[in-house]
Structure formats: structure tokens, C-alpha cells
């Protein structure tokens, strides 16, 4: 059932996002040449500058559109008329949420990759590959210097943290939308309000949590090496807790407090 939901979700969302990314790549290719013509004067120069500006804007557009689209899709597909179809399918509410979460995550990752590829297309020179490899080697050696043997751990932890905060942000949006729909007349305003309130609370909690950590690390005069052992795992646990709370809350609201128009 989850697979079927994901397949359908992918199909529905590709309609907008695949053309969007293809257009980005197309603009990138054009810009590769536009860049070279940048310094020309006259019409050619103007057009090339215009194309470059368009390119920069399009990168932002791609990212913003991806994010906005996934948010509005969650709302539209589950909480408007289409919700009558989705919630009467023989699927559990958590499967509906998970399918959307995973596909949103997928598109965000694809979006980031598309932007990277696009930057490569525009700016890559034969040196780029070797330059990038050198930079990576440099980073790896810094990491192994600072953290001793455990730079792999750091790297893994950082990836986890990035993924979890991405997931957490998506779930935060989902739970805000779910909370918003509890207010039958002000669903959208309710969602925004919920988001802002929860976000503020989280910021507040993070500051509170930093205090004991600050005390702990200054007392024990630990250096950067304490990061992977203590701080990062703690962050991961906290992130996981947050994600789980948001997920369960969204599930509960959809299971017990659903009220489609």
C-alpha cells in the first residue's frame, strides 16, 4: 500500500517538477555560453547579462517552487476535495503521511542535485574535477587532524543531522497544516499560526538546551573533539524525538480529528 501511494505521489508531482528541473538545465546550458559573452559590449553584452540574471533567479525559483509545491500539494491532496478519495482508500493514515514525506524528501534531494549539476554546467572548467577532488582531500585531512580516527563518525553524524533536520522541517510543516485544519473556518491562517508558534517554541527550547551544554563543555574544557562524542549524538537524538513527535501528532490528528469540508 505504501509503495502504491508513493508511486502515485511520484507520478502526480513529476508533472510539475520534472519539467521545472529540465528547464533549469536548459537555462544552464544556455548560460554557459552567456557567461563567456559577459564582457562583450553592446547588444550581445546586454543579452548575456540578462541571461545570467535570469539564471540566478531561476535557481532560486526552482528551490522555492519545489518547496512551495510540496507544501501546497500536501494540503490540496489530503485536506481539500481530493481528501475524500485519499482518506477512503484502504490505507492507514500514517502510510499517507509517510508516502508524502518520502517523496518530498526525494524531490528536495533531486532539487539540490539539479542545482549542483546546473552550477557545474555553467561554471565547470576542465580544472573543476581535480580542484574539487583536492578540496575534498583537504577537508578530509582537516577532519582527521581534528577528530583523530573518528572523522568517519563525524561525517556520518553530519549526514544524519542534515537529513533529520530536513525531515524535521518537512514534518513541522505537515503538523502545522494538520493543526490548522482543526480550526474549521480558518484552516490556512491556523496552519501559519501553528507553524510560527511551534517554530518559536523550538528556538526557545534550543537555547535552553545550549545552556547545560555550554556549562558542561566549559567545565570539562573539552575541545572540538567532544563534538562527535557528545554533542552530535545528542543533537541526533533530539532531532529524532522532534520528528517522531511531529509525525505522531499529524497521524493522530488525521486519524481522530479529521474534518473535511
Amino acid at each position, binding site marked *: 500500500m505504501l509503495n502504491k501511494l508513493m508511486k502515485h505521489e511520484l507520478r502526480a508531482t513529476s508533472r510539475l517538477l520534472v519539467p521545472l528541473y529540465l528547464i533549469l538545465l536548459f537555462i544552464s546550458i544556455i548560460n554557459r555560453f552567456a557567461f563567456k559573452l559577459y564582457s562583450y559590449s553592446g547588444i550581445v553584452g546586454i543579452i548575456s547579462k540578462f541571461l545570467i540574471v535570469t539564471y540566478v533567479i531561476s535557481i532560486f525559483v526552482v528551490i522555492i517552487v519545489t518547496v512551495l509545491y510540496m507544501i501546497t500539494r500536501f494540503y490540496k*491532496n489530503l485536506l481539500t476535495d481530493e481528501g475524500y478519495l485519499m482518506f*477512503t482508500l484502504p*490505507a*492507514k493514515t500514517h502510510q499517507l503521511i509517510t508516502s508524502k514525506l518520502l517523496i518530498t524528501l526525494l524531490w528536495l534531494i533531486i532539487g539540490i542535485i539539479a542545482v549542483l549539476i546546473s552550477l557545474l554546467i555553467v561554471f565547470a572548467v576542465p580544472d573543476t574535477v581535480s580542484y574539487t577532488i583536492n578540496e575534498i582531500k583537504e577537508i578530509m585531512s582537516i577532519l582527521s587532524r581534528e577528530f583523530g580516527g573518528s572523522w568517519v563518525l563525524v561525517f556520518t553524524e553530519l549526514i544524519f543531522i542534515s537529513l533529520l533536520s530536513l525531515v524535521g522541517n518537512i514534518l513541522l510543516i505537515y503538523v502545522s497544516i494538520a493543526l490548522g485544519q482543526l480550526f474549521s473556518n480558518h484552516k490556512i491562517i491556523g496552519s501559519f499560526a501553528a507553524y510560527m508558534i511551534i517554530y518559536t517554541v523550538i528556538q526557545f527550547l534550543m537555547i535552553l538546551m545550549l545552556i547545560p551544554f555550554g556549562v558542561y563543555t566549559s567545565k570539562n574544557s573539552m575541545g572540538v573533539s567532544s563534538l562527535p562524542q557528545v554533542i552530535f549524538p545528542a543533537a541526533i537524538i533530539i532531532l529524532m524525538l522532534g520528528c517522531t513527535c511531529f509525525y505522531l501528532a499529524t497521524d493522530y490528528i488525521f486519524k481522530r480529528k*479529521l474534518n*473535511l469540508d
Partner: protein
Amino acid sequence: MNSILQCESLSKKFSGSAALSNINFTIERGRIIGLLGPNGSGKTTLLKIINGLLVPDTGKVQISGMEPGIETKKIVSYLPERTYLADWMKVSDTIDFFKDFYGDFDAKIADDMLKRLKIDPNKKLKTLSKGTKEKVQLILVMSRRAELYCLDEPIGGVDPASRDYIVNTIITNYNENAAVLISTHLIAEIENILDEVIILKDGTVILHSSVDDIRTKEGKSIDSLFREVFKC
């Protein structure tokens, strides 16, 4: 288990006012039941509860002995009053969708009905008229071999010839193991196919009786009785 639907002391309130109060009734398999009542009487709320889209405040509802959940959604086919299909889908996409998610969906029946109603499966839903979209939804819902069909205003926005076809579809689709619950205000059009009627007023059941009993006792059609009871 012969009763397919059982409602016991169902109540649901929305911001203070009761949409449903103490609803009790049972529906047997093999029957076609009319759920009648003016706007705001609670018909749609009741259908939403049966389909797991709303959780009642008190009481319980059982479909084939089970509370609303995945297992009941597998055997209940719901046609809501609104267009619940995504506009970008082609008619054939919607058939694939139903085939994918519902094990009891018979694509052959659906294709056949589309052909009879001269609906092109390759057209996107957004290019179809409202009436045609409603017909497509009805075809999808009736092509499932379900045990309970809940139809909310199935003949509402449709022309008279198509209404006849829809009524005919409900009859020919009949099987003794399933029940059909039709919520409508177009009583005159369908009362001849109803076995029983449940009439709701202000969230309570004011009458649940067989159509024959009403006609014999009152000597008039359900439509006439309804107009009397709900005279403005």
C-alpha cells in the same frame, strides 16, 4: 452476518450544535435504502462517519461487524457529493488508480460503462463537463464489487437521460450480498427502486420504514409524504 451496517447511539457535534443525535438503525444486505432529509439534516455527516472520514462523539458504527478502518474501506464504496478526482488525470488514469488500490474493482465493467455513456477514456478530467465528471466517478464507484455502496446525491447534477442510466446501473449492479445507501433530495426519481427509506430531520431519524409500508399506510408517494413533513 446479515446486517451490513449498524449504527448505535451515534452523535456528533460541530461547534456546539448537534449534527447527529442518537442515531440508531440497521441495514440488511441486499437492500436499496434511501437516506432522505433536507439540507443540514445530517445525511452527509452520517455518510462521512460510515466511511471513516469523521469520528463520532459517542456511539458506534459497524460495517459487517467491524468499526471503520482499513478493512471496512475495502468493502465500502463511497461516492461523495464532490469531485474528488484530480483534474490532471485522464479517465483511463482514474481507472488504473482504482484498479491499483481496490482489489474488488472490475475494470471491464468500468470500461463497458464508459463506452455506453460515450466517454472517451483518453480525455483529461479537466476537459470534461461537471456532469460527465460525476458520471465518471459514479462508474468508478459502481465498478467495485463492494458490500456497501454509499452514494451521496448520485443523480444530482445530471440530465434526465443519464439519470435513467444511473438508476438502471444501480439496479443491474444489484447483488444480494451488498446494500446500497442513497442519499438524495431527488426522491421522486428514485423512490420506485428503494426498499426502505430512512428520513433524517435535524440530526435524528424520524422515520425508518419500508417503502411499501409507507405507500400502503399513507396512500401516497414518499415524495408527497416528504413534502408534507418538511413543509416550509
